[in-house]
């Protein structure tokens, strides 16, 4: 009888291999992985990617560009882990192996370096829409989807459409803040919200202000895009900057599911670091997703009798942080919520994935769009700018069948 004996292989892949040791190649994840559905080859699936990690670690697969591309082809959506009987963290393995490949091959593909550089420059990000113009000059726009600046639906237009006349413009009664009365709240404005959805970001700020005064310290990107593309050092630098920027706050609230997800998990990255371990732990402990905070603080959304919503669960919120109920509770208070078929299936956005693999992302989105149209809801709501880019595109393609909005714009 032949059995798998543990082998040792190239050291750079040891960390990634350790993550996939529990994978017994059963195949449970095959139907769960959205990418396997649009590209039915083994390497697109979680099982296939985990096998590639082992193959690299055991010296069966050369660490080359082709391997790197195959392992970049992952949404990090965790649908596989959710389905997996052994809860193998394929997404974490992908992050580790991308890092190892980036280290081994010297540099990551050009596009991710550019994206990394752009997001890292706080000033560039700060310029918002002007950044996008800058990107075009730098010929970076070819990396971006045709309509990167998504046509953002404004809260005002939305209110006009769905509210009864008496309610238009009325603000919600000011509730007592329930989360640590007197806590110093700070808003973490992610790059996506700042650059692409400024109107939604203003809505968040308006809502936060209704609950308590809040600070908005100057801060860089959360670092998730860097991590996803094997730029661990850049990620750690950004994390340290963020820890310092929010030292003063008791609560760090963000309206980007990807930011809250990565900021909540800083601790493990500094576990071995005697200086930063403590601060990282303290910082992560005070991060809250907007909806999580609002429910805890007892925020009462304004009710619009005529609004029908459906809600798309961002991967980083539902599977990443277990936040499923809070957004629904808020939406039910604000209007009628119709549940979406396959509500937790990734929309195909996933950071820069939709820029790098437009066809696969479009195919995934098509299914999402059909599901949204199936609900008959007027508005698809989500809580992550990454998802919102995709959903806005779906809304455009649906020719007015529905609108896409950030949750802060409808509650």
């Amino acid at each position, binding site marked *: *009888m*032949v*059995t*798998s*004996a*543990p*082998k040792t292989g190239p050291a750079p892949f040891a960390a990634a291999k350790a993550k996939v040791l*529990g994978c*017994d*190649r*059963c*195949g*449970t994840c*095959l*139907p769960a992985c959205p990418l396997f559905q649009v590209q*039915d*080859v*083994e*390497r697109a699936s979680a099982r*296939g990617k985990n*096998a*590639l990690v*082992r*193959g690299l670690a*055991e010296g*069966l*697969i050369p660490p080359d560009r*082709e*391997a790197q591309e*195959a392992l970049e082809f992952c949404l990090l959506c965790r649908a596989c882990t959710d389905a997996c*009987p*052994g*809860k193998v963290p394929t997404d974490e393995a992908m992050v580790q192996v991308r890092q190892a490949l980036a280290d081994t091959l010297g540099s990551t593909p050009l596009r991710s370096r550019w994206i990394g550089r752009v997001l890292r420059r706080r000033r560039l990000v700060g310029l918002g829409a002007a950044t996008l113009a800058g990107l075009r000059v730098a010929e970076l726009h070819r990396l971006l989807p045709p309509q990167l600046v998504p046509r953002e639906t404004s809260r005002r237009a939305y209110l006009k459409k769905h509210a009864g006349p008496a309610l238009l413009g009325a603000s919600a009664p000011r509730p007592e803040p329930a989360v640590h009365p007197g806590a110093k709240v700070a808003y973490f404005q992610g790059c996506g919200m700042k650059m692409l959805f400024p109107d939604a970001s203003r809505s968040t700020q308006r809502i936060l202000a209704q609950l308590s005064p809040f600070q908005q310290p100057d801060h860089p990107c959360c670092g998730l895009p860097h991590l996803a593309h094997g730029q661990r050092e850049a990620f750690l630098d950004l994390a340290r900057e963020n820890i310092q920027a929010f030292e003063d706050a008791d609560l760090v609230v963000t309206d980007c599911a990807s930011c809250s997800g990565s900021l909540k998990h800083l601790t493990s990255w500094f576990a071995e670091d005697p200086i930063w371990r403590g601060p990282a732990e303290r910082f992560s402990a005070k991060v809250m997703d907007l909806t999580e905070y609002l429910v805890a603080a007892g925020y009462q959304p304004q009710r619009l009798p005529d609004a029908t919503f459906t809600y798309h669960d961002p991967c980083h919120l539902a599977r990443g942080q277990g936040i499923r109920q809070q957004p629904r509770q808020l939406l039910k208070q604000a209007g009628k919520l119709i549940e979406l078929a396959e509500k937790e299936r990734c929309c195909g956005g996933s950071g820069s994935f939709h820029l790098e693999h437009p066809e696969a992302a479009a195919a995934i989105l098509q299914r999402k769009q059909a599901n949204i149209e199936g609900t008959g809801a007027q508005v698809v709501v989500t809580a992550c700018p990454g998802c919102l880019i995709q959903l806005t595109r779906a809304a455009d393609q649906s020719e007015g069948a529905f609108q896409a909005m950030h949750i802060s714009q409808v509650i």
Partner: protein
Amino acid sequence: MTSLTTLEPLVLDGFREAVGREHVIESPLEVFGYSYDASFLALDRSTVPQAVVRPRTTQEISRVMAFAHQQRIPVTPRGAASGRTGGSVPLEGGIVLALDRMTSILELDTANMMVSAEPGVRTADLHDHCARQGLFFPPDPGSWKFSTLGGNVAENAGGMRAVKYGVTRDYVMGLEVVLADGSILETGGKAVKNVTGYDLTSLFVGSEGTLGIVSKALFRLRPLPKARGVIRVIFRTMDEACSAVQEMLLDGVTPSAAEIMDATCLEAVARARNTRVEPGAGACLILEIDGDGASSLEAQSLRIDTITRQAGCITFRSAASKEETEAIWAERRGLSSAVAAMAPNRLGEDISVPRSAFPEVVRRINAIASTTKLRIPVFGHAGDGNLHPSVLCDLGNPDEAARAHQAVDGIFKAALDLGGTLSGEHGIGISKRPYFADAVGPVSLATHRAIKGALDPLGLLNPGKIW
């Protein structure tokens, strides 16, 4: 084992012509994904195929086979590679013939209660398709959400419902099979009674891809049961649990599933779910019953209550809600990984004994566990005598690895001694090949070889498997 070289460009062209260029995978990185299945075999360079060919029609399969035959290229059929014994792992290079793109359900004949489908259809998809018309396709291997019908037929897959409804073989009415040289054979048909010639249909069921490529299958169906219920019963010993199942079957109460687990399994589940094992619990039965409606379920449940009480059960719980049903089944479904989490490695086996020998084989496995100083939790399908002992070990420790293999040998020997077989449902593949000749004896082995020689004289179909 032949060493691997890349296929000649001309040869690849032949396959490209047969199925279309985009349906042939050649990149070394991509074909690596077709070198393994869900068995415990190590990843290895020697099992990477030279190309993967993905036909969409019977005609394409026929062209691929004719060409492979002419060029003497080994062909390993593959469904979803969820097999547990290495059946779809190519041992001698050549091509993997991946049938997962043949996903059409061809005809649902409600009048005759039959359905025909292509080999790449997922088992659960066929089930759901039929259920929408009130018809029932019972085979339900644990892998049914991702395994394919072709793989199910080739492995004669069973499932939890086998105790009442039988295994895949009991539903196959006819097959379309592409033979090694590309010729197309049709067997069986919709006539329920059929004694014309040899039973060629059965010959291919369980043939593990060594006799032909299943390109279409015709299955019979049953009416969909209108109601289902789930019961969880705890006993002090495995003996008590087994005798309760015997009594039920003798009494004419046939559960549609009767899953059994021993004390170690209960402990593993409790650990994984952060719960506690009932004091004194030594075995657990999870029973599914089905019938026409609530009253039929109630009557069965009452009978089972009485029988299990007589057998000495400690607790009896009949699921009252959908959530409770889910919670009980989740315990069974999470079992395999809960057990796996107890040790660095697990050699999960699949033996089958006559139902009456179930308690005895468990006793022998326990004895093997103590002589090899390893934990060997046992769970399985009590109703049909099919059990899955899992040898827990650390293969990184050479002494323990040796003891683990000794334990596996002992388990197979115990099964054979008691009139059982090497495999209840996972097949022989590669991992049980060393035991095959002993298990079946020389005459059977020669007969197997003669059949193989007649259908695949060049030995190109799934070489290296079964014996």
